[in-house]
């Protein structure tokens, strides 16, 4: 039984959301530590010291050769054993935005029950052809095994990316992902009833900000422990961050719905590790 799970927050090489990601885990009751990628690579630190791993957003390696490609390779080759052991130990991993791109390119997402570090999907250029910075509405698959999203129906949070269009080689791959309930979260039309927004047909811009197939915003691995998403729930941790927060009375509740994702992981670690 872990009372205060320790979270490794990767930083370095252009990751730039490490501090806020560390902060939300602290708010959720964990102990965060920002660890430079190289410290895991050169063996100064080991992932086994931690209960949760977060790969934050940013522009790792300047997005050269494609978003997440170089950090993905670094983790795939130089941290392979540590990562495999981490997953085997049943410890949760989250990748947000660039971190999601990294986990996809590392091969951890959509992944296999036992990681084989083969890339099976990609996140590529937005259909709009440009970087999109806007708030979106997300809905979650209630039957997903994802431990990060339990009890969440719908949240609003921002996307900030140029390469967020989720693609896979064939519809068979997507169907398999769907059947496993690994399509954890999708962009939805906010005018639909909560719980009824999920649709396979790609929604028009800007509801689906990047043209993702089946409006996919985030997926998990078959175990539900590894989760990645393009939107930034850590940037929706407080009610006053919402762009419309002044349009209503002052909200006495400070923490917002985005926090639930981080609380879920902390509670999971407390109960299971």
């Amino acid at each position, binding site marked *: 039984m872990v009372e205060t799970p320790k979270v490794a927050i990767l930083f370095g090489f252009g990751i730039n959301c490490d501090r806020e990601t560390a902060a939300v885990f602290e708010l959720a009751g964990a102990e965060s530590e920002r660890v430079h990628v190289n410290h895991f690579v050169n063996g100064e630190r080991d992932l086994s010291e931690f209960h949760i791993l977060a790969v934050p957003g940013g522009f790792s390696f300047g997005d050269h050769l494609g978003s997440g490609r170089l950090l993905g390779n670094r983790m795939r080759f130089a941290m392979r054993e540590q990562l495999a052991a981490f997953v085997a130990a049943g410890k949760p991993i989250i990748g947000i935005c660039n971190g999601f791109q990294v986990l996809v390119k590392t091969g951890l997402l959509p992944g296999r029950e036992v990681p084989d570090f083969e890339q099976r999907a990609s996140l590529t250029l937005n259909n709009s052809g440009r970087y999109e910075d806007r708030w979106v509405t997300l809905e979650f698959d209630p039957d997903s095994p994802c431990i990060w999203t339990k009890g969440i129906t719908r949240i609003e949070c921002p996307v900030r990316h140029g390469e967020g269009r989720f693609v896979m080689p064939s519809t068979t791959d997507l169907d398999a992902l769907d059947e496993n309930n690994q399509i954890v979260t999708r962009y939805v039309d906010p005018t639909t009833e909560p719980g009824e927004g999920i649709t396979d047909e790609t929604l028009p*811009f800007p509801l689906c900000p990047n043209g993702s197939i089946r409006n996919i915003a985030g997926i998990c691995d078959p175990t539900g422990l590894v989760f990645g998403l393009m939107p930034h729930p850590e940037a929706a941790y407080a009610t006053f961050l919402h762009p419309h927060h002044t349009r209503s009375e002052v909200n006495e509740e400070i923490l917002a719905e985005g926090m639930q994702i981080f609380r879920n992981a902390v509670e999971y670690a407390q109960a299971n590790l």
Partner: protein
Amino acid sequence: MKNDYGTGENKISIPPTLLFSLFGNHHDVRYTTTSDLKPGESLYLVGESKQELGASEISYMLSESGESDGIGGEVPRLPNPEKNLESYKALTKAIQSGIVRTAHDCSEGGIAVAIAEMCIGGRCGAAIDVDGPGEADLWGRLWGESLGRILVGVKQENRAEFLAAMKGQSLTYMGEVTDGDTLSVWDGDDLIIESNVEEMVMAWKGSLDMTGGVQ
């Protein structure tokens, strides 16, 4: 600021513009205001409109189109900044008590442009009357750029509390946010400006459209 966006034929260049930004610490960021009008608000002007059209946007516009000469008369002055500070402090207190959620400065284009921007931000209509105290004529009250003025929106149920908080300050009731989609500016009984909010949005945003009409 200089800003290019897009590529090739699709490039939009913002002309180099000098921008001033002010930064400060907030006790509680939840108790802040934005310029977009919210439904059910009454509108007040903090500060005074004087006959100060000198070097204003409207005078430049009219002089460029050849409709007038000169710079438009007296330029804005701030003879008594202590008085401004006092009303800002009162307004700040009102904002920090949570009863004011809407405020916007009056700069280029004066009150007429400020209220238009507030309608554009809130995507809602408003009706205001610029007739009021002071020596300024209609031009001065519509387009004048007198310093230190703030247009404020207050929910109707908070009006009494707001008036009490602003007691002794220069404050003029201007009008109301409406349920309609039109901005109406009155001078007493005369309707001076009537403008559809969607049309104003298009005028403001249209020149930046690179999406082929998708918003």
